[in-house]
């Protein structure tokens, strides 16, 4: 049974999601920060975490952007294969929703049209990065994220070989977090993507960083690896804002996909403490 959805519904939904995402960080992250403010052993670290929590309380109460960097809008769509979009272009509807929400929500325009900066003017804008998956059924699941670039800039991808194995994944995660230090705005969320091809690993890492931090990988061995990586990341001593302490990351999430018998692609996508994400369905 084909389900018709007018793209204006998606536009309005995106316009609402971008504002809500930027005014309210996810409950799981806020709770983790509150817990961390009690658990952190370093005094300056505790004080920093308390200020972060206070910032989120102010932003929510006064409906202000939690951070001036409202980031790049990342829209992940799972579209049922029985959905038929009507009323215009799906991509343009998402772009329109982002433009509208950015304006009505008093968010900073953080995207430049020309990444090379060779054009005198910024060129045509594409205010969102869109990932679409076609799935069975007639539902549409949307995950919206405003991805700030402090943490995005510190992310990394490397093509390992099978013999490198899990130790290479571990070392690469630790190396990436250590190099990022305070620049990624710790306490961070670490998304690790393993497998597929070059671009799959990056997308898996993005999905991982956007998974709630209280949801563990369903496979027991990967769940253990997530816990072990979190512990080792926190042993780096970077602490809140790199001022030293025990809480460098709030969570490490891993996502995997089958890969070539010759390969082991690994991507590490970092999310700052205000990793803004919100999900809904149509």
């Amino acid at each position: 049974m084909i389900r018709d959805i007018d793209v204006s519904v998606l536009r309005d939904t995106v316009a609402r999601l971008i504002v809500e995402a930027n005014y309210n960080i996810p409950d799981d992250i806020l709770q983790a920060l509150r817990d961390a403010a009690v658990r952190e052993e370093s005094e300056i670290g505790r004080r920093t975490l308390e200020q972060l929590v206070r910032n989120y309380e102010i932003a929510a109460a006064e409906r202000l952007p939690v951070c001036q960097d409202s980031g790049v809008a990342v829209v992940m769509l799972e579209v049922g294969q029985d959905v038929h979009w009507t009323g215009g272009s799906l991509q343009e509807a998402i772009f329109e929703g982002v433009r509208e929400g950015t304006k009505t929500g008093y968010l900073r325009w953080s995207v430049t049209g020309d990444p090379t900066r060779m054009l005198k003017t910024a060129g045509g804008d594409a205010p969102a990065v869109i990932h679409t998956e076609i799935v069975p059924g007639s539902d549409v699941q949307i995950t919206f994220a405003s991805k700030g670039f402090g943490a995005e800039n510190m992310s990394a991808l490397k093509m390992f070989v099978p013999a490198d194995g899990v130790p290479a994944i571990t070392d690469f995660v630790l190396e990436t977090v250590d190099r990022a230090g305070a620049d990624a705005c710790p306490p961070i969320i670490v998304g690790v993507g393993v497998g597929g091809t070059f671009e799959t690993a990056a997308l898996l890492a993005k999905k991982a960083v956007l998974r709630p931090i209280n949801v563990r990988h369903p496979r027991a061995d990967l769940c253990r690896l997530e816990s072990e990586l979190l512990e080792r990341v926190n042993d780096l001593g970077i602490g809140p804002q790199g001022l030293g302490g025990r809480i460098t990351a709030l969570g490490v999430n891993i996502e995997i996909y089958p890969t070539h018998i010759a390969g082991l692609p690994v991507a590490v996508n970092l999310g700052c403490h205000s990793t803004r994400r919100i999900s809904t369905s149509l």
Partner: protein
Amino acid sequence: MPFHPTHLNLPLTGAVLDGLRAGDSVELSGAVISFRDATAARLMRALEAGEPLPVSLKNEILYAVGPSPPKPGQIIGSAGPTTTARMARFLPTLFAAGVRAVIGKGELHGDEMTPFLTHGAVYFAAIGGLGALLAKQISSATVVGYDDLGPEALYALEITAFPAVVIIDRQGRNFHETARAHWKRR
């Protein structure tokens, strides 16, 4: 333990700069000038070409920020610090033009620290992702140049009891480095 940050009025005198120690928590009050990637690049081009700047940088303090637009009734939108390292390559020129200190976020190491030591400049880190809260510590905001750069325009800002931590002091200490070394588990 009660928390007592040191209150500092801007501009900072040489004696005050001398007295700062890496790791000190401070609250800054006074005038600062905003800068970001595009702003710093343009200031540097003007300085290298010997062209006049929209504002004098003599004895000034730069704050790495690109604020959100203000909501009605707000002085400035969310206005937390951005990553200083992206602008590190412009700092030698900006220090030579008279800048005394930089407020930003994130780490500076090795070659990035050298211009601070050469010019006796100090690096303060504010807390990244504290946009809504820090906006309340800004009592005036005026675009004084490069308004075509939008959020990267040159703003003259008046800050009040603005919380920060001394990261690089005049003795060349780096608080991010010592703090990490102290808390690292081997």
